[in-house]
């Protein structure tokens, strides 16, 4: 029984379904990566798990509780953090204010969490008074991930965290994600850079037309000749 599982998810935005009985699960202290071709429903699967999409069939369970009908905000309260692919920071606010907004639902003192995030992303401490919209792409992603971590989530969901950043910054971001995983958080992410993402993943899903095509450990997927040929470019 996984910590977070979206089981047999079917649904879409309008009349046509995008997901067809897709199942995704993630355990605490584990990185799970969803890869697949364009239009496979990777981001949609993430949104479904996070409650931004109404499911016609299937269910989402967190720590054994059925959360299928809960709103995204309610899921944040229950310990799920989500970093959208775009518009994932408050561009007119300072880095520090961005992080404070992440802790908006917390009534307790969050200064320790803030320090932990500054430890994880030292650049954010340096630039804490700077307007977030003035930062580089990689730094913005760090703000976005930091914002989601302010609620001390048990599950962190990342929608293409390395989209549009340079390879060096991507490696650095992946290192940070491994650190987050090592602190016991379940990490679920969608990635375009499939090979690199699978290399750091504990498990991976290959999604095609809204269905699970392959599910295995990250390394096994990388070694699978069919997966390599179809989705990783040889």
């Amino acid at each position, binding site marked *: 029984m996984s910590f977070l599982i979206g089981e047999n998810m079917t649904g879409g935005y309008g009349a046509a379904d995008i997901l067809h009985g897709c199942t995704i699960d993630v355990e605490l202290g584990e990185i799970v990566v969803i890869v697949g071709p364009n239009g496979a429903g990777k981001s949609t699967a993430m949104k479904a798990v996070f409650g931004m999409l109404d499911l016609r069939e299937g269910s989402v369970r967190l720590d054994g509780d059925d959360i299928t009908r809960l709103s*995204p*905000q309610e899921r*944040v*309260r229950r310990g799920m953090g*989500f970093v*959208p692919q775009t*518009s*994932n*920071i*408050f*561009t*007119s*606010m*300072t880095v520090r*204010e961005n992080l*404070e*907004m*992440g802790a*908006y*639902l917390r009534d307790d003192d969050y200064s320790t969490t803030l320090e932990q995030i500054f430890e994880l992303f030292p650049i954010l401490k340096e630039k804490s008074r700077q*307007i977030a919209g003035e930062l580089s792409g990689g730094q913005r992603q760090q703000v976005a991930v930091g*914002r989601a971590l302010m609620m001390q989530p048990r599950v962190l969901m990342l929608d293409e965290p390395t989209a549009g950043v340079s390879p060096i910054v991507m490696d650095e971001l992946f290192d940070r994600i491994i650190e987050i995983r090592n602190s016991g958080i379940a990490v679920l992410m969608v990635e375009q850079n499939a090979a690199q993402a699978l290399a750091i993943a504990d498990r991976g899903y290959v999604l095609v037309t809204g269905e699970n095509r392959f599910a295995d450990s990250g390394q096994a997927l990388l070694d699978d000749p069919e997966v390599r040929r179809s989705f990783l470019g040889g």
Partner: protein
Amino acid sequence: MTDFLDALVLITNFVLVPGVAYGSQLALGALGVTIIYGILRFANFAHGDLMAFGTMVVILFTWWFQSMGVSIAPLPVALLALPIGIAAAIVMSLGTDRLVYRFYRRRRAPSVIYILTSIGVMFVMNGIVRFIIGPNDQRFTDGARFIIKAGEFKKATGLHEGLAIKLTQGLTVLVTLIVVVGLFRFLQKSRTGKAMRAYSDNEDLALLSGVSPERVVFYAWVIAASLAAIAGTASTKVSNHSPIFSCCCRFSPPPLSAASVIHSAPWSAGSSSPFPR
């Protein structure tokens, strides 16, 4: 040298003092429009009539206080009535939101719908105000008229030109300063203020962070209505013209265009504007 000083006093008396007082009124009105624009994302054409409504309540209560013999001379009694006018404007705007705007918010209507709706709201509010107090000029000033009188200024300084500052002008600038500083501090420092800026910046992410849209909208109306009542009262007292504006054309455009200046000013790219875009 006295010529130079005379010129300085002349321009202060006829340009600077009235200009700053008028600018203060515009700033108060424009900030209200800007707050609503930042949170609800539409240019509120009914803002001018919200100002008139708040002013009307202030006038009615000022008359009532005056009839009871209440006086806080040299300050005008209207200052005592102002909180009541603010409260009435808040109730009016929250009521309008509940009855009208919330319906469109739930439908996620495009902003042009809101704008057209606000023109309708404008006519209704204008009708209410005309129905209650009528379209004529109303006098409600009392207390001292001047802080500095022209004649006394001439005598004291020995210059040829006089400088007069009305008490209402001084009060308007003072109140504007207090309100503007208070508002900016609220938006920059307080938890709710930050939530409002976050909501204005990135609505979806603010929702993800747990910001309640209804709460943010509530505060936006409270702030905008307070500013409207203050601005309306101030401009009626200073320029001494009718508080009941001949429909929209008298009062909505100045705050709206001033608000567009606030938005397009070069410094709005930084963090100094309440709602940078």
